[in-house]
């Protein structure tokens, strides 16, 4: 993580997460855990007619896991579940290094996490929130 722009974004979302809170009236909730490193979050969403009207997360973990979840919520709140799923799929491809520049743009700030694709040990941290979102979509 040598890129300081990227570092700043992660630090900012880690130290001052906008969405790390219980969501009033949440109607879905899912816990996501990385057993090997202990990142542990619970993602809460309030869905109305297939749209994510509010979302948040609680828990703890490393800066990347916390920042990534916060950035994800910035991106998906206000979007349909279907659209959120599409973005999540792009995000996970970005982390494994198979994505186009146009796709990265659609991810907005989450595109800054592309550096994680060079850090195999941190991939699980970066995708934890997104993986939990997918688990909700798949009704697991």
């Amino acid at each position: 993580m040598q890129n300081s722009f990227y570092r700043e974004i992660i630090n900012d979302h880690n130290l001052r997460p906008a969405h790390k809170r219980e969501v009033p009236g949440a109607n879905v909730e899912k816990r996501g855990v990385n057993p090997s490193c202990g990142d542990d979050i619970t993602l809460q969403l309030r869905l109305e007619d297939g749209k994510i009207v509010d979302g948040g997360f609680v828990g703890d973990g490393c800066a990347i896991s916390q920042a990534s979840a916060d950035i994800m919520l910035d991106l998906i709140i206000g979007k349909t579940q279907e659209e959120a799923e599409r973005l999540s799929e792009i995000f996970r491809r970005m982390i494994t290094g198979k994505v186009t520049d146009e796709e990265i743009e659609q991810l907005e700030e989450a595109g800054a996490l592309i550096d994680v694709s060079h850090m195999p040990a941190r991939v699980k941290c970066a995708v934890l929130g997104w993986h939990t979102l997918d688990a909700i979509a798949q009704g697991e």
Partner: protein
Amino acid sequence: MNRDIRADFPLIQERKDIAYLDSAATAQKPACVIQAEGDFYRKYNANPLRGLYELSQEATAAYENAREKVRAFLGAESTEEIIFTRNASESMNLIAYSYGSFLQAEDEILVSIVEHHSNFLPWQMAAERVGARIRFLECEADGSISEEAFRAQLNGRTRIVAMTQLSNVLGRAYPIQRFAQIAHEAGAIFVCDGAQSVPHLPVNVRELGVDFLAFSGHKMCGPMGIGVLYGRKELLEKMTPFLRGGEMIEYVTRDGATWAELPHKFEAGTVNAAGAAGLAAAIDYYNELGFEWIQAREEALSRTAMEALQAVPYLEMIGAEKAEDHHGIFTFTMEGVHPHDVAEILSSDGVCIRAGHHCAQPLMQHLGVRSTVRASIMFYNTEEEIHRLAESLRSVRGRMGYAE
């Protein structure tokens, strides 16, 4: 000692950019060990214990010579008591599976809370199989376990006590000789995990009076993939094999089999003879350095580390206050920064440390920490590397966006 120890280690010479402070996970290898492992394949490679031709006999001799080296190193009575495995984990599984078959429902196995998963999960399996119970011996916040606390957990149903001689998280050493004696008086056998102690302390199984002791070659500068189980002969003799297959039988028919003599009964299949030869070279290397020097050097480095780390703001050391109770292992947390972020920042400074639960989750739960950072030292480390660690740690919070 007037000698450049670091010159013995090719990786240390090759990677002058890094400070390797993760020896509790695996030690670096001196050239003599790498050479010995390669020499086996270059000069003696044949399947040991099988062929009747000369080369195979030489391979057998190299392998059995390694067994004798281990016997002498541990002070065991006979090479029949030395079984080669892949690592300490496999050694523990062997005991838990095989000796564990003597357990009955309601029997108890006493394990300490500081155990590495490799000296806990096999016992959990052994207990589940017959409906036996696991009882935990808890440690104080500084990692210590008193004789009274130990006695209090023993009772008439305790059959096995499984305990490490040196914690891989806290670096604390335990009075195994005394505990083994007390366990025996209570009618239990004593299984000792020597994975961390054998590389750092002189260990004599007869003086300790333990019934079993396991360690891994790779943590004492030997190759990966070779481990040892010491077991008292009379116990090993009545145990059934753990793995079945080639070269561990006496006689096989359609209906059954009889087993080979010790130690071969427990060494099914083609063995890691090159690994054993490498371990023998590691033992020679240790004997050359001598434990007196090794311990003095590691104690001096530990004092430097304790002082340097305790001076780092926001760092909280886990376990004992005194450097001599850490045996080169320092586990800590840093306020406001997840251990994985600490590890990543240190990595970018070329400092190799470990972050996570160190395969000791029950201990982490007992101490009330989720995850920690661990720096571990070996005789080949330097004061300069320790200062590099401390300096890097001082920069962590700033780099994580905290304005100090």
